[in-house]
């Protein structure tokens, strides 16, 4: 539901992957003596390096700063995995009326998504429905997750959602081209039988 996360994950994995690959290949080349047998026989952490590190105690504070930056970036990367860029308020009539005096109308996204969920739950065979508006307030996207009974006519339910519910949502938002993403799940259970 979040395209920035998708891009961020790709870039993050690409960066970490490239760094590890370069480091790994470098170590392997050094180890196999590609840069000379002398070099391959030298210690990984030579005495001279240890002395230099001991003579420069500021290095540890620099290492701490780097660790904090990397740690914070990693924490943010983790947190964005569960983030959904849900819209809370919708701007209606903006950019559509050339007259600035016409003002603008704000609407609660929750009110619309709840109405959409109620409409879907009213369709025979629907067990659960969830609607969300994501993206930008002036260019929203409608995301629908619908669970049906396993004996329900999924094709019919889908038609009703597309032809009635999505159409009504587009009319309400005055966005005839509102992008909608519908994910259908068929429940393991069939409809509960009512006893008359």
């Amino acid at each position, binding site marked *: 539901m979040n395209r920035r996360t*998708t891009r961020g*994950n*790709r*870039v993050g*994995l*690409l960066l*970490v*992957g*490239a*760094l*590890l*690959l370069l*480091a*790994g*290949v*470098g170590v*392997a*080349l050094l*180890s*196999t003596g590609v840069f000379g047998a002398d*070099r*391959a026989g*030298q*210690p*990984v*952490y*030579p*005495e001279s390096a*240890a002395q230099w590190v001991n003579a420069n105690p500021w290095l*540890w*504070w620099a*290492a*701490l700063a*780097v*660790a*904090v930056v*990397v*740690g914070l970036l*990693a*924490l943010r*990367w*983790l947190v964005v*995995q569960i983030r959904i860029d849900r819209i809370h308020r919708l701007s209606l009539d903006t950019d559509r009326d050339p007259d600035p005096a016409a003002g603008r109308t704000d609407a609660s996204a929750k009110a619309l998504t709840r109405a959409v969920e109620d409409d879907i739950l009213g369709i025979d065979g629907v067990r659960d429905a969830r609607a969300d508006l994501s993206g930008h307030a002036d260019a929203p996207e409608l995301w629908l997750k619908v669970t049906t009974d*396993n004996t329900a006519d*999924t*094709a019919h339910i*889908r038609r009703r959602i*597309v032809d009635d519910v*999505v159409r009504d949502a587009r009319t309400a938002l005055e966005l005839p*081209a509102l992008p*909608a*993403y*519908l*994910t*259908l*799940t*068929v*429940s*393991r259970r*069939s409809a509960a039988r009512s006893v008359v």
Partner: protein
Amino acid sequence: MTDQIRTPRGRRVVAASLVALVLLILAGLAGYLAVLIATDRRPPVGDLDAASRQLQGVAWNQPWVLATGIGLAVVGLILLLIAILPAGRRTVELSDIDTNLAASLNKRSLARTARAAALSVDGVTDASATVGRSTITVRAVTPFRQVAGLPAATTDAVDRRVGALNLRSPRTVRTRLITKDA
């Protein structure tokens, strides 16, 4: 003509979360050790001076250094491939005449739909279905020994139900009939 919008592919959440978690743990550990060394304190476990001396005795050409390098390169290559190759789709896309609507059904749900269609056929007492790239394989169970026409009827029923969904990549239905005493 406007292009049909499509259900987005996976976001590589598992790989990204794992790498982020490992980075967070390593950064925390490195920061903690940096503070200890900078303030001349000792860690509760291990000896940093001994570790430093031990590392001075390790040459680049030792087998485990080579193994570490190869390990790092392999992990790096896997991460690069995950980042570069298109993420997999966990859902089956459905076609729609509305170009601004992307509908999809998860594979397990498609299998359940196929199973329900198979169970609706007279003579089928149990069924299971698996969804492949281009096929849906249905295993239908019947107590009857004379089953002429039953496999075709099952295939027809599943085909009709799945066909009504309008899959973006249509799948061929195959039925295997198993005779089992009731």
